């Protein structure tokens, strides 16, 4: 089993994908087997288990279009809730049989996490994106590795720990895992087992709301107990605030520091000022004003995105939005859902955005 995603396969011109409509193929193939598609990676839920008091681990079987995932990477899972396909990122652990295990923490008001944790039935099929993310271990590991996880940030760390265990734990690995209380800790037994088998691996639980001895947050955490970190490769994953604090705390005091942050979208306090808009296809990043339609703002910057009616009816200017919050200029409604379509002529940027433009 390869740890790294394989590149997209090159196919001969006789392959059906060159002459069959994808919609037609997927419809009929899907009648035979729910995972059969022409191109799209999909995954089927094969089992589910509680991972902690408020988290569940789902085991998914991907189809052959999924090109694999390296420990520490993420995938986007497309889950249909009330007719809408919603996309969320998870860091899966690749199991020996090729299945992916993802651990989902229930979030209050989180449509996807609640669906996955409570309603998803074995057999349900999800869209699966290809793996992404740079937080992976180098082929030749550093002298020592320090993993910092907060909350759901444990999931990529679990995959990395299992990778190191498979390799026989060649270097010292320390995992510091922040959680509010013991019931919220995921993989407690599994991590303890690995630590028991490998003296080179240590788990440091930091329970910030522990009744007897609440642990310090990352900004004040006492790293001196871990010894000399100057040669350590550090990886941090957790909410945006946690990752920022970890960066401030350790930058320059360790060999390398990689981090991944997940931050739920926050609505802005005001509709004034500017935001950063990244245009992914053209590789440009612009400062655009809030409160002005994206189409107008982009045109002011000298761009000419496709457009038509300029009043939100003809759908010519529609464009993919990877992330960020937009606001409808006519209704004032906010749209925070990632991986959706946005009409540039009747929406303005409210937060930093990533557009497929």
């Amino acid at each position, binding site marked *: 089993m390869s740890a790294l995603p394989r590149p997209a396969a090159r196919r001969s011109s006789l392959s059906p994908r060159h002459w069959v*409509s994808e919609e037609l193929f997927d*419809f009929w193939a899907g009648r035979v087997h729910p995972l059969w598609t022409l191109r799209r990676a999909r995954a089927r839920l094969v089992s589910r288990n509680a991972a902690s008091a408020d988290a569940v681990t789902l085991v998914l079987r991907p189809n052959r279009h999924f090109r694999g995932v390296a420990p520490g990477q993420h995938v986007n899972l*497309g889950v249909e809730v009330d*007719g809408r396909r919603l*996309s969320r990122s998870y860091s899966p652990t690749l199991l020996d049989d090729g299945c992916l295990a993802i651990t989902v923490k229930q979030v209050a008001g989180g449509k996807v996490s609640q669906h996955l944790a409570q309603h998803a039935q074995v057999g349900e099929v999800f869209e699966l994106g290809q793996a992404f993310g740079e937080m992976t271990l180098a082929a030749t590991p550093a002298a020592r590795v320090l993993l910092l996880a907060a909350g759901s940030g444990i999931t990529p760390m679990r995959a990395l720990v299992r990778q190191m265990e498979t390799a026989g734990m060649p270097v010292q690995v320390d995992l510091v895992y922040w959680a509010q209380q013991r019931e919220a800790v995921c993989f407690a037994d599994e991590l303890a087992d690995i630590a028991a088998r490998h003296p080179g691996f240590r788990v440091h639980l930091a329970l910030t709301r522990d009744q007897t001895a609440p642990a310090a947050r990352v900004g004040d955490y006492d790293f001196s107990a871990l010894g000399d970190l100057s040669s350590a490769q550090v990886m941090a994953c957790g909410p945006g605030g946690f990752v920022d604090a970890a960066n401030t705390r350790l930058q320059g005091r360790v060999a390398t520091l990689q981090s991944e942050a997940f931050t739920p979208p926050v609505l802005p306090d005001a509709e004034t000022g500017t935001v950063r808009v990244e245009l992914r296809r053209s590789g440009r990043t612009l400062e655009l004003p809030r409160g002005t339609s994206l189409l107008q703002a982009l045109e002011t910057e000298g761009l000419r995105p496709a457009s*038509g009616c300029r009043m939100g009816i003809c*759908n010519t200017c529609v464009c993919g939005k990877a992330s960020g919050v937009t606001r409808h200029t*006519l209704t004032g409604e906010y749209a925070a859902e990632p991986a959706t379509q946005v009409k540039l002529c009747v929406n303005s940027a409210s937060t930093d955005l990533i557009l497929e433009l």
Partner: protein
Amino acid sequence: MPAVHNRVLSAAELDAFGNELDALRARHLATLGDADARYIRRVVAGVRWTGVAGRALLFLGAFVHSVLIPAWIAGVVLLALSKILENMELAHNVIHGQYDWMGDPQLQGSTYEWDIVGTADNWRKTHNFRHHTYTNVRGLDDDIGYGLLRIFPEQRWRPFYLTQPVVAVVFALLFEWGIAIQDLRLGRWFAGKITFRQLLAQARPVGRKMGRQMFKDYLLFPALAGPFFLPVLLGNVVANVIRNVWTYVVIFCGHFTADAETFPKECVRDESRGHWYLRQLRGSSNIAGGKAMNVMTGNLSHQIEHHFFPDVPANRYAAIAVEVKEICARYGQHYNTGSLPKQFGQVMWRIVRHAFPSRPARVKPLVTAEQGA
């Protein structure tokens, strides 16, 4: 032309009219969910199953000669039904972006491609943008007579139009081809505004699409029947023609009935939202009928509602229509609807009448003078 009474609205009334329609739209968008997603997926399944059943019956007739005629007829009907459902209730609505909210890449308005010789890309331009933004505006909406027919007295008469009762029939039979070349605007080449080479370059994508469609319907499937290719080939031709005539009838009923109005270019300058809605209402007409009519016309039986809200899922139009009718009544606006024979009868009369010279009646303004642009 029957006299229709439309109250001339004041600027304030026009704003209120627009706000009520905006609110109606928002109410429906807010409740989109599972039921709408299931509906469009049922339509997809309907297209696939009727398509495969129609083709299977054509093959059955080709190989089992004792059932040739009944199987051929049933096969043609089902294949035509599949194409009509695909073009109208699925493709037309999906291409408008009505189901973009589902996030299903196969039901995305910006990328969907349909089972017809024209390209979806051309359609997005001529239909979604030009026709829907500038509905029935002379000189901006190419759908007024498609550059081929004189439907309204405001179009300048030329002797060529004397032939249009015949031209209109030929156009109906070949409607998909007319749609396919609409965006090429051959007139510009006839007028010498572009060279033949430029025309060819523009025509390349639609040429490829035509080739693919002809290969599928007129080569691949007939060839699969080997020596009995003829009934399969004819079945495909007839199914495509039935689809052409039906879509032509439905689309012509949408904007060319007796009470449908056209508008001068000036009226879209700095147009308010309320005025835009009012223009959509005055330029569109519905076809009364039940659920079957709604599905078969891709809900263009609710042309008025479609023109108000082209990106709201069409399966909502029947419910929206109840409220639209009530709003129109309160604002004293005529709600143009009628049975298919009545509406298409008016269309045919227009085609015949305006083949001959005719003069436009005096037009009443849409709004009172102080509205001003």
